[in-house]
Structure formats: C-alpha cells, structure tokens
C-alpha cells in the first residue's frame, strides 16, 4: 500500500493547486448543515473530529433535482432536447468513512441494469479524499454495518492526521493515484506501518448488531408487529431519506419552462411519503406508515443486500439525529437483533 505524508500547509497548497487545475473542492460547511463548494484554500476546514453534517454530499453525485431532458411543444410536433451533463471535476475533501462509501453503494443500483448517465458522469468525475473519523455519538453505528472509522473503503485517497499539522495520506485506488500524480511534489513518502499503529489506537464504536441477523429476521418476520411501534409515530416526512448518504429513490415530474415547453425532472423521493407508492387508480399498496417504515428497514438491511450484497446503510446516524420524532435506526436494528436472538 502506497502512503505519502503532507503537512497542513502543503495540504492547503494542494487545495490551491486543485482549484487552479479546475477541480471543484467540496467540504463540510462550518455550520454543520451540508457540504459546500469552496473557492479559496483558506476555507479548507477539515478535521477528524467534525460532527457529520446534517446532509451528506450525496446531492453532488445524485442531485436533489435535475433535468433529464427538455421538450418544446410546437404546433407540428414535440421537439426533445437533451439536458447538458456537467463535466465538473469534484473533490470531496475530508470525507468520513461513512460518507466515502456512499458512491460505491449507490453505484450498484445505478448500474445493474440501466446505466444512469447522470449519476455515472458525476461519480466518474469525483475524487473522494476520505479521512479517519474520531467523532462519536450515540447515533453512530458504522461498525455494525461492516464499516469503521478507519475504513478507506470508498475513498480514493485517505487522510490520517498524525499530529496537529501533519497528515499521512494513503493512496487507495488507481484513480486516486492518477489524481495525485501531478501534485506529488507536495508530498513526502510515508510508512503504512506507522499509520496502522495509529489505527490500532482508535477507539471503535461498539458493534450493536449483526446485519446478517437482521437480514434473515426480516425475511421471516414480514408481518411482525414490531414494525408498528416505529410506524405509528413516524410522521412520514422524507428527512431520513434525504439526509441519508445512500438513499437513492427519485421521482420523475414534468414542469413548464415557459409557454408550451418544459422539462422532465428527476427529483429526490422518499419511501416514507404516502404518495411514494400511490397508484394512479387511488390504490396505495403501502397504505399506512407502518408498512412504509418496514420498507425502509427492509430495503436497507435485506432487499439491497439480497440484490447487491451490500447494506444500504453506512451507519452515519444522520437519519436518527434528524428524525422529528426520534426514530433511531441503529436502535431499531439493535432491538431487531435481540428479537432475533430471543426468537420472538
């Protein structure tokens, strides 16, 4: 494994160079709300102790709203015009392991059948510089979903603070290697063994549940009344899905651009919305919130695993921190685990 060293000062120069080379640098904002583009390396604000922002950087690879194509209705027919795909080169700087993994996870659903150009173009143009995570709170559970604060899975490069002003940077992917190549003068050679020692000292969150246990329990307990407890207080907003780094459902709507012309939009959607499964006929197969909540848990811990061998969750805890009524997915998974253990 290739590893380099860089000082904080040089990291800033690195950022400066990247901006000059027309990369878009995207970082956690200072308010802790979302990820932001920065225009100046002075704004480089990274730390392993940052609390995860309320929203993940998902919106940069999977837009909250984007046009698929435009249409112009003329008297003699309809003209279709393709939407321009942005070729912006993006660098997600200082991503926590739980965020870094998200592109890989979503990539599976966007490529298993139809290749989603909108996602792929952005994903291909993205570099994820992950970073070791030293933030912990009661909502974090990355270790339960086979990740960890030191996981470089999903990162192209992975930053490890060695002291206040120095970092080790691990080259994780070939894409990362190519990306860093022009800037190598800013880096010194590093020793992976030293950083491995750092990793060992990192205090890992306790594993709360076995995802495999959850998966099999859900498969056998579809009608279990346990789901009702969350379902009856869930208000059916889309907060959990929208802040989730890996929820990827979208809705297609048309909207007017002007007189007799318009565009087809791809917008975030959430399985907790009652309209999500509402049929044109008025029938709604998931007609109550319990069913919708079960869908959320099942999709994350069973269906996605069954189909893509990947848990649709990175344990970041965002949905639980933000839930208006305090539904805590980590806690629920733990409870399900104990239900399974007790064979209830």
């Amino acid at each position, binding site marked *: 494994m290739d590893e380099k060293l860089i000082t904080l000062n040089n990291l800033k120069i690195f950022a400066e160079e990247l901006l000059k080379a027309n990369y878009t640098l995207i970082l956690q904002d200072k*308010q*802790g*709300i*979302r990820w932001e583009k920065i225009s100046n390396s002075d704004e480089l604000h990274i730390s392993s102790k940052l*609390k995860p922002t*309320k*929203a993940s950087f998902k*919106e940069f690879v999977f837009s*909250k*709203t984007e046009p698929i194509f435009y249409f112009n209705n003329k008297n003699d027919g309809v003209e279709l015009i393709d939407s321009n795909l942005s070729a912006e080169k993006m660098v997600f700087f200082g991503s926590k392991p739980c965020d870094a993994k998200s592109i890989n996870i979503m990539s599976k659903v966007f490529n298993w059948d139809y290749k989603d150009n909108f996602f792929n173009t952005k994903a291909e143009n993205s570099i994820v510089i992950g970073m070791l995570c030293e933030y912990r*709170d*009661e*909502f974090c559970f990355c270790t339960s979903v086979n990740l960890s604060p030191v996981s470089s899975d999903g990162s192209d490069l992975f930053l490890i603070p060695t002291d206040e002003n120095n970092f080790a940077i691990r080259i994780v992917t070939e894409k990362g290697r190519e990306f860093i190549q022009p800037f190598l003068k800013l880096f010194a050679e590093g020793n992976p063994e030293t950083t491995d020692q750092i990793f060992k000292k990192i205090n890992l969150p306790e594993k709360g549940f076995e995802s495999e246990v959850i998966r099999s329990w859900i498969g056998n307990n579809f009608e279990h009344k346990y789901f009702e407890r969350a379902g*009856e*207080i869930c*208000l*059916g*907003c*889309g*907060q959990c*899905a*929208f*802040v989730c780094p890996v929820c990827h459902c979208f*809705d297609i*709507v048309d*909207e007017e651009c002007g007189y007799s012309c318009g565009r087809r*939009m791809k*917008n*975030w959607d*959430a399985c907790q*919305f009652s*309209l999500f499964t509402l049929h044109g006929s008025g029938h709604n197969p998931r007609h*109550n*919130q319990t069913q919708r909540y079960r869908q959320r848990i099942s999709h994350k811990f069973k269906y996605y695993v069954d189909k893509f061998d990947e848990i649709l969750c990175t344990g970041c805890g965002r949905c639980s*921190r*933000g*839930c*208006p*009524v*305090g*539904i*805590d997915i980590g*806690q629920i998974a733990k409870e399900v685990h104990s239900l399974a253990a007790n064979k209830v």
Partner: protein
Amino acid sequence: MNELREKAKELLLNNTVKLIIGYANGNGHNRTYPFIARNAADANRLVFNEYCVNNLAVYLTRKEFKGKGIIGIVAKGCDVKAIIQLIQENQINKDEVYIIGMNCNGAVNQLDNSFEKTTLAQKCINCTVRTPALYHALIGTTKDIEEPADTLGEKIKEVEKLNADSRWDFWEAQFEKCIKCYACRQVCPLCYCEQCIVDKTVPRWIESSAHTRGNFSWNIIRAFHLSGRCIGCGECERVCPMDIPLSMLNRKMSIIAKKEFDYSAGVSLDSPTLVGTYNMKDRQDFIK
C-alpha cells in the same frame, strides 16, 4: 411524573380514553419520543420533562387514531393552542379528545437534535400559556423560569430593516437550501390537508422540484396557508434538516395578524378564525 402516570392509568383502565399520546424516554439518550400508551404498562413509561419538545397534537388528526373513542393527549400549553385550532377547523371533535394539560416550565432548545446545551427553546420565551387554556386534567405546577431575550423578534426586525433586494437575497439564500423533505409540513399539527397543494399536479402551482424557484413558492405559500393559523410551536424550524429559519416567517405572519386584526391563533374556541371572516374596516391603504 407519578401524577401523570397515575392519571394515565386511571383513564386507560376505566376506558375514558382508548389511548394516550404522550412522551416516553428514549433508550439511553437524553431525549423523549412520542409514545402511544394503550395499557397500564405503557402508562408507566410516560414521562414529562423539559425534553418533551414535540407538539403531539400532530397525531390527533391521524386516521389510525381517529374515531371510535376518545384520544388522550399529554399537552403543553402551546400544544393545546394547536388542539384549539384543530377543533375550530373541524379536524377533531372536542368531545373526542381528552387533554391531559401539563403545567409547563419550558422546553429546552434542541441544538442540532441532541441536547448538547440546554437553553430555553425559542417558543418558550414570553410564553403566555404555561398553564394550558383548555384541559380535562391539569398536572404539575409552574415555577418561575429564567427567560433569555427574544432573539427571534430581533432577527425579524433586522430583516425588515433591509431594503427589498437584500430581503430577497436573505430569503433566497435560505430557500435555496430546502431539499423538499417536507419535515416542516409533516410535523405541523395544522398541515392536515389530505393532499398538500405542493403535491397537486394539475395544475402544479408549486413545483415539487427542490430548486430555488420551487422552494421559494413552497415556503411562501406554506407561510401564507398558516397565517392566522400557526400557533408558533416552532416544530417546523426544529426539524428542518437544512436549518431554514421558518419561525422567522411564521412569527412574522403572527405579528401581522396581531397588528392588523388583533388576532392570535389558538387562543380560544370561541374566537372566529382569521381567514374566513372579514371586517368592513379592514385596512386598505395599500389598495389604490
């Protein structure tokens, strides 16, 4: 706490109510959650303390709970305002709700959804309903609490002082953030429409796409639809994942309602609603 649990048990056991919407402690966290108590064991889990920020009135209009018996609800004074408004708007029958009114000493401010710092919540500053205006049972006592200054009013005044373009810029920056998760709507006890106008597609007055234009219309129209109705529980702002200062809109509309019509929402069952009534003397100096 015991008083609340005893009352709840009594109501459930003698079938006065079929269920009680209340709060329970979370698992190990410093938070409380909405909790539906259906039996005596459940009643023992009910709690009430300064962490009970949620406005539970939002659950009263849920189809799963409505009908066939009386619903009990643990309600602070501000929550009762929402209940009064819901009764006035024919959403709940006043004979089908049993209000366990809580004398309230203020809820804490939920900073970033974990109570890292416990300051008094904005909605509790200058509260006039620490004892609810309407209840069937009243529990607890009020005591003097220290109230910080009303910074919300100041923030509104600051925006008002800006010129029109700067006001626009301020709000554009706020609305741009909106991701249309509708947490504000779903948590609002008064957003009970069967179909929200933003979900209506023919015609689509408000674009559901989360771009600034659609967000602008959405937030403006929501504030308008709530004007004269919002009781100021601040839940929408609390749950907004993008920290949009929605209270600055809703409070502003309340200030207008008070100034123009001497009207406050949710105060009494007898007062007419603001929209739906008129006065020959309503102001019209802005009409040419």
